[in-house]
């Protein structure tokens, strides 16, 4: 070979110089996931894993129940979401439409443990609903704890999300089609069959896949509402193996199982998951359709919308009411509450900052790869790396880190660091999806200009990118911080104080059956989430360069 290695090496350095941010981010994620996997594999011992899953009927029941409740939850959420989304699409203008749609956006950002408290208060064994039914002379004596409670809670979270994810499908129906249908004199059913259903099929699988994944790795809902071994998901079983039985190998085996199933699900469903973006679902879809104005349809639609809004609003209203009428002063004067709230905010901001740094690295390099090196595949790989935590649930990473740190003792300060790290991976996909498109858009608009002007690095970010990504970035960081404030999973796993974060404190108040104190704590948590969201969103979103 006569070729000298010189040019190749130079080319390598050139690529390395511009792509280091993405490489560092990707390596960080790879290291974290690799370490988790190794620790779990060593911790469980592959033989033990096979033995456990093969011989232990309980573990098989847990896996079976996890899949079963996720399937039912998905079916119910989607089944309810279709008629409701249709009602919204058919009624593009009525007073309060925007408000109701925004209400449907609330469950996604409501801390799970708060919503669970509200759901118990309204739909629980001795909830308001049952009292109301009794007044009407009806009674229902079924068991709320177990599958029923889990399904109600999962529908509460995922049905509004599904409505917002399905709604854009109606915007894709061309207005000519509506006109044609009108000329053909189609009735409501025919419209659904020939126009709406075909449009829905493009978004339905993606929505179902996202809902299924969310329900599959549900933790706090099942922990509180499961009511016993007959309704336990894999994530709850991991928690119980560590905290109830102190059986690290069993926890490792379960975490490996969860990792395997989630990865398989994401790989199997990735085509549909990728095609989805989480829409704010506010497009009005005002198009002429023949059945919109018929008063019977209009009243039906408004009734459906009213009923579903009540379903979502009642638990939240119950919390606010119980919180305001609860022992406000004694709970709010408790220094533990403020210490926990402070830690929650600190953890959330740190987690959002870590997620932002990781996302920035991946996005900067991914954009370089697309616009300057024309390497779309490599760019896609980096984008996927940002969503890899969908396949590796935070609870699994948390378990890995837990087992890694066990010989050192689960110390408090260490726990806070781990929660920051795991929460950062939890919110990373949201960050990628919200900031990513805007960042690429800035590239489309200004890449050529920037290169002509020789503008790069900090200057380019400040002058060319910032004005475009400012708002989505503010929204993304605010969303991520809010989600992190409300998350309980890994914090519950690592907590040794009963009050490491505000959601954990709330969980213990709920566990000690102090409903009035829990309601005030829940209200404090809601206010905290709202403040964090507004301050970060406005703070970054309005920060001009």
């Amino acid at each position: 070979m006569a070729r000298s290695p010189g040019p190749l090496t130079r080319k390598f350095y050139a690529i390395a110089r511009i792509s280091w941010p993405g490489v560092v981010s990707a390596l960080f994620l790879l290291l974290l996931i690799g370490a988790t996997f190794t620790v779990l594999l060593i911790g469980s011992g592959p033989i033990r894993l096979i033995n456990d899953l093969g011989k232990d009927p309980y573990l098989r029941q847990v896996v079976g129940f996890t899949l079963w409740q996720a399937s039912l939850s998905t079916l119910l959420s989607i089944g309810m979401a279709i008629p409701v989304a249709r009602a919204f699409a058919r009624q593009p203008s009525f007073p309060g439409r925007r408000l109701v749609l925004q209400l449907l956006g609330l469950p996604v950002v409501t801390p799970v443990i708060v919503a669970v408290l509200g759901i118990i208060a309204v739909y629980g064994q001795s909830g308001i609903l049952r009292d109301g039914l009794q007044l009407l002379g009806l009674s229902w004596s079924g068991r709320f704890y177990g599958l029923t409670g889990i399904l109600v809670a999962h529908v509460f979270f995922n049905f509004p999300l599904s409505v917002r994810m399905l709604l854009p499908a109606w915007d894709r129906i061309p207005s000519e089609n509506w006109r044609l249908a009108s000329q053909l004199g189609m009735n409501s059913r025919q419209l659904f069959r020939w126009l709406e259903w075909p449009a829905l099929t493009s978004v339905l699988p993606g929505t179902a896949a996202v809902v299924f994944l969310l329900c599959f790795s549900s933790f706090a809902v099942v922990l509180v509402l499961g009511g016993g071994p007959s309704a336990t998901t894999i994530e709850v079983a991991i928690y119980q193996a560590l905290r109830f039985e102190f059986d690290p190998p069993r926890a490792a085996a379960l975490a490996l199982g969860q990792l395997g199933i989630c990865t398989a699900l994401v790989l199997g469903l990735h085509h549909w998951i990728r095609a989805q973006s989480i829409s704010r679902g506010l497009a009005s879809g005002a198009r002429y359709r023949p059945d919109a104005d018929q008063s019977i349809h209009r009243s039906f639609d408004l009734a459906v919308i009213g009923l579903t809004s009540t379903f979502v609003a009642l638990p939240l209203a119950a919390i606010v009411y119980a919180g305001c009428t609860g022992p406000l002063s004694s709970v709010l004067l408790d220094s533990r509450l403020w210490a926990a709230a402070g830690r929650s905010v600190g953890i959330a901001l740190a987690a959002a900052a870590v997620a932002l740094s990781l996302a920035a690295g991946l996005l900067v390099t991914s954009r370089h790869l697309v616009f300057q090196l024309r390497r779309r595949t490599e760019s896609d790989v980096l984008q996927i790396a940002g969503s890899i935590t969908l396949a590796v649930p935070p609870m699994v990473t948390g378990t890995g880190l837990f087992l890694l740190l066990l010989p050192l003792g689960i110390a408090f300060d260490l726990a806070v660091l781990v929660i920051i790290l795991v929460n950062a991976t939890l919110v990373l996909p949201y960050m990628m999806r919200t900031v990513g498109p805007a960042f690429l858009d800035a590239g489309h608009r200004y890449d050529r200009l920037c290169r002509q002007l020789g503008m790069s690095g900090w200057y380019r970010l400040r002058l060319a990118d910032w004005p475009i990504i400012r708002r989505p970035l503010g929204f993304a960081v605010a969303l991520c911080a809010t989600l992190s404030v409300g998350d309980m999973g890994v914090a519950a796993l690592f907590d040794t104080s009963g009050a490491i974060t505000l959601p954990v404190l709330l969980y213990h108040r709920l566990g000690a059956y102090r409903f009035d104190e829990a309601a005030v704590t829940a209200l404090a948590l809601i206010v905290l989430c709202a403040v964090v969201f507004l301050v970060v969103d406005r703070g970054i979103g309005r920060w001009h360069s």
Partner: protein
Amino acid sequence: MKFLLRGGFALLTAITYCAQAETEKLTIYTYSSFVSDWGPGPAVKKAFERDCNCELDFVGLEDGAALLSRLQLEGRHSKADIILGLDTNLTTEAAATGLLAPHGLNIDELDLSIDWTDDVFLPYDYGHFAFVYDSEALAVVPGSLEALVQDTSGPQLIIQDPRTSTPGLGLLLWIRVVFGDDAPLAWSQLAPRILTVTAGWSTAYGLFLEGEAPLVLSYTTSPAYHRHVEGTDRYRAAAFSEGHYAQIEVAAKLADSPHQALADRFLVFMLSPAFQDLIPTTNWMFPAGRTSQPLPDAFTGLVQPTRTLLIEPEQVAAHRRAWVREWLEVLGR
């Protein structure tokens, strides 16, 4: 240089002063009902702090059995100086962790109301498990564990998880004693009527008082609370003809605790009348040590078990995991 030295000296003095000013703190891990406002915790804290020149800090876990897994989890780094709330069913396993230290007290001088020989654990109270029912919601009261289990159209009940709760574990062993190897079958008959399995006794009893179910696993002494505090006979314990499983609640100090002398002092205090007098009307159990006054009237007329059932600690230690797995499997179906 002189400035630095002087500054350093001032800092050192300040640190020494703070260290002296800070009173010694004794951390006790226990179960949540012990530290609740109506439990013994607040009064015990007040009584002990009165003349120890120290601070007593209770950490309340879900229930007694969770103490063992927390101990294993935290290992030598535990912040606890004392754990209070295990029962004899867990003492063998807890001692096997090697994390606990002998109490070093002469048991003969302690004047205990029960036979006791253990050199690591000290008992502070005892009682018998029982199903407590709401007499306004339950017409037919089961007269035996067998009747309760086999009446498939019987009332709904609330129990505790044997992995976190000592009453939950107690029921597991009670059913084991009565049904032997048929215990899984008994559980499968009972399972459809279990409203919920809670992590701790507090939650279970709270749900019961809210009227969620007419029957809850608790103690023969629980009705004394309602009689003494609320003046009502509405809540009663069901007497079972097979006998009732007993519970002896114990405490021990951690070998790695930096406050050995203070921990010893607390254990002695725990068996003194100052602590034992609080037990009947706050923890609603029978005191294991000397009291300065007789039991309150509310304790007369309680269910007297025809037989006391108790499995040897070593037996429990040898089979607990297997029995819990069995229980999980049956209730998981």
